């Protein structure tokens, strides 16, 4: 059976004056209806670039994209990478929607929020403006905006950040998409509001039965809401598995380092949080070997110069638990 979304060997590169920026490299993963996939990784690891590629939002003139992004809808699958721009446009906001990090700037300042939600509905449905407005009020109500029938005529600047993110969610869901990509939807918000927005996303997922791809820096959030996790490093997928597996049995040195840098409830008092030394590499002309090699504490356990010379492939380390490392799960465990 085909997956709702299947990304196969996706590479996204930007030609720049300094050279080719390989922002996403040979990325493969999938998502199914009803599940939440979290994508984590340091800033610049290619999380946004790959989700923009899923939406077909890259400018084809200034971007080199290869691989496949297969979206199944109504029994037939479309490859976003090769489909016509009109086909992709119909998918966007219909089958697959996206919300962004900064709700302050993601809404058009000159249009009322009702107008902006209505526009999204009218783009994918036949109906009058009055229908669209009714739909907008209904959605605003659903995402928890009180007095929706009046607030529908308000402008974005009259709303707080949390409210605007609710509006963004209402707009993204107005056409009942199958996939919702949320790119750091709470990073720009107050801590108290963050929890509310996450809960809203969870509620909406149940309401509309969709797949959610949640991009985040916050591993605490991942543990709470995600079913599976993709860990990315330097544009590559380094580990993928269920939340449980990844947190209990991380098998990639980068994931291990990432988890050690997060405060945990079960940690003994006084243990110092570890950070991963060094910086992520430049995405221009990455070395031939493992991208994490310069910062990896486990590289010394790999015989020869393998980590430096040979790029590791994604392998299944446990059932349904993938990682891109020359060491086996047992070897990692032995040296931890």
């Amino acid at each position, binding site marked *: 059976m085909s997956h709702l979304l299947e990304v196969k060997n996706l590479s996204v590169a930007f030609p720049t004056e300094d050279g080719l920026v390989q922002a996403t490299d040979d990325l493969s993963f999938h998502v199914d209806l009803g599940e939440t996939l979290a994508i984590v990784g340091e800033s610049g690891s290619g999380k946004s670039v790959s989700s923009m590629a899923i939406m077909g939002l890259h400018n084809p003139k200034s971007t080199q994209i290869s691989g496949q992004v297969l979206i199944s809808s109504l029994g037939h699958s479309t490859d976003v990478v090769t489909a016509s721009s009109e086909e992709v*446009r119909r998918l*966007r906001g219909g089958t697959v929607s996206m919300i*962004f990090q900064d709700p302050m700037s*993601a*809404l*058009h*300042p000159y249009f009322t929020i009702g107008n902006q939600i209505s*526009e999204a509905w009218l783009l994918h449905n036949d109906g009058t403006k009055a229908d669209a407005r009714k739909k907008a009020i209904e959605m605003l109500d659903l995402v928890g905006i009180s007095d929706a029938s009046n607030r529908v005529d308000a402008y974005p600047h009259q709303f707080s950040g949390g409210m605007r993110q609710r509006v*963004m969610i209402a707009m*993204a869901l107005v056409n009942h998409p199958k996939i919702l990509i949320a790119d750091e939807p709470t990073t720009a918000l107050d801590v108290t509001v963050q929890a509310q927005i996450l809960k809203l996303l969870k509620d909406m997922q149940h309401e509309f039965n969709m797949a959610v791809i949640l991009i985040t820096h916050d591993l605490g959030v991942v543990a709470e809401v995600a079913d599976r996790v993709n860990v990315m490093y330097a544009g590559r997928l380094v580990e993928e598995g269920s939340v449980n597996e990844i947190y209990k049995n991380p098998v990639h040195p980068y994931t291990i380092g990432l988890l050690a840098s997060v405060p945990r409830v079960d940690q003994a008092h006084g243990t110092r949080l570890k950070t991963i030394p060094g910086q992520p590499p430049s995405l221009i002309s990455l070395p031939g070997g493992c991208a994490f090699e310069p910062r990896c504490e486990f590289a010394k356990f790999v015989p020869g110069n393998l980590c430096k010379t040979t790029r590791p492939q994604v392998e299944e380390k446990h059932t349904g638990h993938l990682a891109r490392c020359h060491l086996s799960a047992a070897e990692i465990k032995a040296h931890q």
Partner: protein
Amino acid sequence: MLKYISKRVFYAFVMLFVLSMVVYLIFGLVPIDPAKLSCGTHCNPVVVEANRHRLGLDIPLWHQWWNFIMGLFQGRTYGEGAAMIHCPAPAFGYSFPNNACVTEVMAGAFPFTFTLAVGAFILWMTIGISFGILAARKKGTYIDRLSTAFVLIGSSLPIFILGLLIYITAFLLHLIDPITQGTWVSPLSDPIGFFRNFIFAWITLALAYAAIYTRLTRSNVIETSTEDYIRTARAKGVAERDVLYRHNLRTALAPLITNAGLDFGGLLGGAIITERVFQLPGLGYMSIKAVLRDYDLPLIMGTTLLAAAFFIFFNLIVDIAYAYLDPRVRLN
């Protein structure tokens, strides 16, 4: 919104009021004596003093200013008996070199200036905005480079050189007749003659201004295209065309209103060089004559104040238009 507008209107009037004082003060201090100038070459002190009294210049400056303000509303009468001159409201004073009330002189010149400004404005807005949008859409292509060249030439070539080049070209092609050029032709009775009078002046001004508007439009459209809300529009499935025309241009062109309003308001005060080159007896031509040849102080003062009034008025229009467009301004 109404409160906002009435506040702006009030400020505009205050500004005009203060400005009239400043202008009066400055012209009261310049070493030109209108009374002496009014009585020609064979002149004796008695006549000068009589004229001074007739013109109301023998009283303190503040009082003169007050008479001036009152004259704007009530009209003014200079002298008595047979030598009496009456200027109906709004009276800006009396111009001896023209033997006419300043208001009358300005009213005669205004149609030229107004026609020149309106025609040039329509031309440069159309050229500037379309070229700017095109260059932004085709960023990096030869069309974009062409626009850069246009901007560079248009904004660096002094307007009198541009104007002369166009004038000479038109003259050599027998499209301009220096004898009849600049006499008012009604657009209703002779539309072709009317256009012949203005078309080259329009082109001159429009080219100079269009360069600025091309640059502004291009950079605003490109800058707006990187905004998050443009990405949002694409993400919800808006077609590229509508992303540009509905979402991008709305914000990209709004700041141009400021430039457009002030440039147009400024031009209504007279386009000195263009009017001079194309022999159009508008406000600009008239004021330069008043300054350089006639030392016609009342006329200079009148044109200065009129130009300032246009500028302030269009400032007001800009503020209101901006509030109308941008809810963040309107609702604050």
